[in-house]
C-alpha cells in the first residue's frame, strides 16, 4: 500500500482550481484557432478571435477566463493500492477549493441550500466529487470548473427502447438548438447513453474531461461522434450564437449497457471556456 496524506490532495485541488480558471488548455486554443479558418461568418470569425485574445489576457493578467468560475467538479481516479490519512476525501477537496477560490480571486457561486437556506457559501464549496477506483498506486486528480450557463442548457431524456440511433441524434440536435447563444458557443457536446437516470448524466459529464480530438476507443462510436458533430455544425448557431458554421468544437459520446425497459440519453453542454486541469499524484 502507498500512503498519501490528504493534504497533498488539498494542495493539488487548490492549485488546479486557480490554473484551470486562468490558463486555457492547448487543445482548446488549437481548436479555436483552427475554427477561425472553418468559420465563414465575418462576425463569427471576430468572436473566435475575441475568445483567443481573452485567453491571452486571462493568462497574462492572472484573471479568470470567464467570470463564472463554476461549480467545481473533481474527478478522482484512485489506485486500489493507495490508502489515505489525514481526514476524509470530500473535506480535503473542499479545503482545496476554498483556498484556491479565495486566493485566486475566483467567483464564489454556490448557494448553500436551494430550498431552506439560499445563501452563498462564500468559498465555492462543496465541490462535486466523483471517485473511480483503478489499478495501481497513483491518484489522478482532474478538476473542471463547470459554468452555470452551459449546465442550464443540458438535458436528459428517457427514450423508448424501440427508439433508434436517429432519435438520439435528434435529441442532441434539439438540445443544441434550444440552447442557442445561451451556453456560450462554440460549445463542446458531452453525450451519455445507457445506464440509469443518474448514471447517464455522469457519463455525459465524464466525457467532457476528454481532450478535444480524443475519440471514443470504440471505432463505431467514434464515427458517430464525428458525424453528429458535423450535424451540430449545420444548425447555423455559430460563435456567440450570432450565426455561423462553428457551433461546436467537439462532440463526445460515452456508452453503457441499458435496461431492456429504458434508453436514457443525457446531453451535457460545455461552454467555450472549457476548463479541465489534471495532475497525477
Amino acid at each position, binding site marked *: 500500500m502507498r500512503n498519501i496524506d490528504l493534504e497533498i490532495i488539498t494542495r493539488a485541488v487548490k492549485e488546479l482550481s486557480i490554473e484551470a480558471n486562468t490558463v486555457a488548455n492547448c487543445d482548446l486554443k488549437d481548436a479555436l484557432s483552427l475554427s477561425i479558418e472553418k468559420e465563414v461568418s465575418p462576425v463569427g470569425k471576430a468572436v473566435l478571435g475575441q475568445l483567443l485574445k*481573452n485567453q491571452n489576457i486571462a493568462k497574462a493578467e492572472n484573471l479568470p477566463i470567464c467570470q*463564472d468560475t463554476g461549480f467545481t467538479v473533481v474527478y478522482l481516479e484512485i489506485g486500489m493500492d493507495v490508502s489515505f490519512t489525514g481526514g476524509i476525501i470530500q473535506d480535503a477537496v473542499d479545503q482545496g477549493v476554498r483556498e484556491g477560490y479565495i486566493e485566486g480571486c475566483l467567483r464564489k457561486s454556490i448557494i448553500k441550500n436551494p430550498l431552506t437556506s439560499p445563501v*452563498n457559501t462564500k468559498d465555492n464549496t462543496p465541490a462535486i466529487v466523483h471517485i473511480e477506483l483503478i489499478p495501481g498506486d497513483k491518484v489522478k486528480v482532474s478538476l473542471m470548473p463547470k459554468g452555470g450557463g452551459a449546465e442550464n442548457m443540458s438535458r436528459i431524456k428517457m427514450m423508448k427502447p424501440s427508439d433508434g440511433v436517429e432519435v438520439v441524434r435528434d435529441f442532441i440536435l434539439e438540445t443544441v438548438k434550444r440552447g442557442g447563444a445561451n451556453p456560450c458557443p462554440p460549445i463542446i457536446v458531452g453525450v451519455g447513453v445507457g445506464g440509469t437516470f443518474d448514471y447517464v448524466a455522469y457519463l455525459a459529464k465524464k466525457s467532457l474531461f476528454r481532450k478535444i480530438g480524443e475519440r471514443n476507443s470504440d471505432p463505431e462510436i467514434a464515427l458517430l461522434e464525428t458525424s453528429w458533430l458535423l450535424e451540430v455544425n449545420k444548425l447555423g448557431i455559430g460563435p456567440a450564437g450570432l450565426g455561423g458554421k462553428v457551433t461546436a468544437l467537439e462532440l463526445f459520446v460515452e456508452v453503457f449497457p441499458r435496461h431492456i425497459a429504458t434508453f436514457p440519453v443525457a446531453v451535457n453542454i460545455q461552454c467555450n471556456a472549457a476548463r479541465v486541469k489534471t495532475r497525477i499524484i
Partner: protein
Amino acid sequence: MGNIKKNINTPLTENIIKTLKAGDEILLSGIIYTARDMAHARLQDMIQKGEQLPFDAAGSVIYYVGPSPAPVGRVIGSAGPTSSYRMDPFVPSMFKAGMLGMIGKGSRSAEVKELIVGKCGVYFGATGGAAALLSGSIVEAEVIAFDDLGPEALRKLRVKNMPVIVINDCYGGDLYLEGIRKYSEEL
C-alpha cells in the same frame, strides 16, 4: 468586431436607439449598472411598491453580469455576460422604471422583444466567455446596493469602448434569428 463600430454613450435616448440596427457593432461608453437574478427580484419589488431605486434608471443600461472579485490593483475581476432569459420576467418593470438598454447573452422571450419595439429599447449582446477582455473596458466599479448578494450585488460601472453588438433593435430586428436563417444548413 469585424466591421466599422459605432460609438454610443449612455444614458440612452430614443434618438440614439433609433439609429441602432440588429448586427451593428457598438463601442459603448459611460455609466451602466449590473444586475442579475436576485437584484432584479429586489428591484422589481421596489418598483411595484413605488419606492425610489438606488440608481437613476432614466435611459439606463443594465448589464447582466456577476463579476469575479477584483484582484489587487484592478477595479473589477472578469466580467462577461450571463444568460439574459432569466431576467425576462423583470423586463416590464425595468422598462416602467426608465431602463432603455440591456446587455447580456442569449435570446429573449416574445414579450421582451415586443417591449423592445413598443418602448423603443435595445438589447445588446456581449461575447459570453470573453470575460477578461470585457473587464478591460470597465474603468470604474462601485457596489451601490444589495452588497449582501456578493457577486450579484448592484454595481455602477463606468465603461469605455465596451464591445457589444445589437441583437434586438427597436424595429423588431433579431440578430440571432437572422444569423441562423443565413447560416443554417438544416433540411
